[in-house]
């Protein structure tokens, strides 16, 4: 199944690439630390490759099924002003405001 060799140790570039996917801006010391530690942890995790799982279906949840089905009825939701009270920035101070504010995305 493995079409690649597992990296025994991560390079700085690999760690930075993963960090970018995870929206983390690591400092140089962290990059170094994670290069070492992620390699160690994956070496342990790689034990799962020893197990013969041919024909075994994956388990997403240990116990099921659950009560997913219920009538799709509209019920009151959280109050917008209460929710926006936690926002670092919003247009709440304005009457009728109901938006989170973020840095300008378009032009």
């Amino acid at each position: 199944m493995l079409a690649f060799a597992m990296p025994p140790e991560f390079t700085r570039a690999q760690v930075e690439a993963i960090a970018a996917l995870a929206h983390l801006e690591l400092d140089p010391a962290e990059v170094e630390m994670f290069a070492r530690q992620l390699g160690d942890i994956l070496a342990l995790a790689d034990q799962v490759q020893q197990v013969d799982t041919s024909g075994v279906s994956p388990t997403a949840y240990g116990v099921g099924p659950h009560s997913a089905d219920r009538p799709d009825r509209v019920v009151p939701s959280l109050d917008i002003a209460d929710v926006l009270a936690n926002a670092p920035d919003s247009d709440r101070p304005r009457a009728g405001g109901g938006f989170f504010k973020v840095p300008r995305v378009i032009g």
Partner: protein
Amino acid sequence: MNTPATLAETRDAVVSGARSAADVCREALARIDAADPSLHAFHTVTAERALARATEIDTNRARFRGAPLAGVPVGLKDNICTNGVRTTASSRILETFVPPYDATVVTRLHAAGAVLVGKTNCDEFAMGSSTENSAFGPSRNPWAADRIPGGSSGGSAVAVAAGMTPLSLGSETGGSIRQPAAMCGVFGLKPTYGRVSRYGLLAFGSSFDQIGPVTRTARDAAIALGVIAGADPADSTASLEAVPDYTAGLTGETRGLRIGVPSRLLETGVDADILRAVRTAIDTLRARGATIVDIELPHAKYAIPVYYLVATAEASSNLARYDGVRYGLRDTQNELGAMYSRTRERGFGAEVKRRIMLGTYVLSAGYYDAYYLKAQQVRTLILRDYAQAFERVDVVAMPTSPIPPFKLGERASDPLQMYLADIFTVSANLAGLPAVSVPCGFTADRLPIGLQLTGRAFDEGTILRTADAYERDTEWWKQAPPIATR
């Protein structure tokens, strides 16, 4: 020796009128004031709200006569949302977060007459086994203040062990209730996945996360579970399975009970004092008429790799929501992407970043099949091991933790060593099964030891009955550290 009151004793005293809820509440707050500066079980103490609530119970005594938690002070792990009370998950990124709603368990505790006295310390986002990953400082073990209380629900276990509250709620993803309960010498219950609603629990590993009680006794845990368990329209994974009367099942009867012991799994890596105490506990159950059966859990040795692959994958996805947009910390930047990544860099601690990184990697293109999918397949085999074991036995017994609580800082630089100590707890989370930790002795250094009992899905009744029967024959649960009785 003056053992702190149990949940049942506290409730009965309030219901009978022997004590007022306000008096009970003031005592809990006084114990927190006295012991918490040295133990750091609590992030937030809600003294005023708690006293107002206790007074409300006292002035409406008739209404709370049948309430299962009338006047019982409760500590809540700080990853459980409380309307109007700061909920941090021990993270800088949520340092200022005040939820606009209550978790379902909080609503249920309230309806049962409980008095919330505060929010307890834990590892950041419940990631850890020592409570050292809290951004606001570690909790300390009431039995030895230079040692960890276990984690991630360390503050919840400390609160009960130190006699601050007779009940606290913790949460589990890989052993975070049972392990600190064992290390602090108190009772911990991880319910079946789906037994308790997760609505309002800050998500970590959504296919594992489950809320459960920390108490002094199995009976107290049975009372608390009866309150918090049951279906919830706000959580589609909360099961429709009927909630039995757990306390009615505590008959003391253990004749005919079949207890499985995975002897081979215990052959290596278990502290000698812990192994001895657990074997003695199993002998006690045998003497009560239980049959002890040797069982095999051939894939249990893969539980840690499977857990750390699947749980970190789920965590990397769940924690994507902390980006500085809707709540918590924001590192103000001119560009949106920079705002996300700077906020997360500043807001998360090392262990959380480590797990997000690992989870992101195992889910990334080219690695998904080899790690995530493969781990989920091995998870199936771990489930089958338990299914086969439960054809022959009713309960599986083993230690909760292979090691006693270690000294603060001792393992901080070696996350892998920390992960390996989860060996006996994570498989119940992978399989979704209920499990308890009940005090069963002390090491030569007088550090608490826990016996773990795992049951069939939705059969909390049998493990609670077994643990309660064990408590009837032993005095370990009555032991309290000096700080609890001062």
